[in-house]
């Protein structure tokens, strides 16, 4: 079995700060995802990457950058943190086989902006 590791688990930032979240997977999966989870709003797709060095914008990409320099890692940057922002960011991966494959999730990074 594999695992998805997200770091840090908790992230506290200041308004206007650039913040980076990291995700590592050892499934050897090609596709990786970043979702934002707000209370009562479910998961919203920020970025996804079909393979190494590929980036695709999701529905919520404004205000974020992403990087996929290695197959095993996928980073997300909040370009300018918004005051009083609170959310959980979830990373996921999926193997080849496209439609039939399951998403595997990390346990999340909880962001608080003061």
């Amino acid at each position, binding site marked *: 079995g594999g695992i998805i590791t997200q770091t840090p688990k908790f992230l506290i930032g200041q308004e206007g700060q650039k913040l980076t979240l990291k995700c590592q997977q050892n499934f050897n999966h090609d596709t990786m995802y970043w*979702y934002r989870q707000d209370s*009562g709003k*479910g998961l919203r*797709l920020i970025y*996804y990457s079909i393979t190494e060095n590929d980036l*695709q914008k999701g529905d919520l990409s404004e205000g974020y950058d992403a990087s996929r320099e290695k197959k095993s890692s996928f980073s997300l940057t909040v370009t300018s943190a918004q005051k009083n922002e609170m959310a959980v960011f979830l990373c996921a991966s*999926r193997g080849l086989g*496209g439609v*039939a494959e399951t998403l595997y*999730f990390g346990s999340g990074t909880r962001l608080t902006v003061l």
Partner: protein
Amino acid sequence: TQTVSQSDAHVTVFEGDSVELRCNYSYGGSIYLSWYIQHHGRGLQFLLKYYSGNPVVQGVNGFEAEFSKSDSSFHLRKASVHWSDSAVYFCAASMTGGYKVVFGSGTRLLVSP
């Protein structure tokens, strides 16, 4: 626009009751549907999926779901819930052959002893 909607934000039942959590989708073409569970403070875990064939699919821990093309639905059911089933349940969808996976807003299930 591809959307997934879960009409019930909260569902409360007693242990041993049956439960149905509703999911409706709006997609054109062939669709891949799945359900995930999220326990407090954790990431999502896969429960079951539908792609083709028998519209009733079985998942882990006694969960099943039924696909209906006519109703654009993929409701999740369990015949007898346990207190440990208390969690948030998410329905998800993607186009067949696609990579973008869209989630519903989730249903929080509370099972009272």
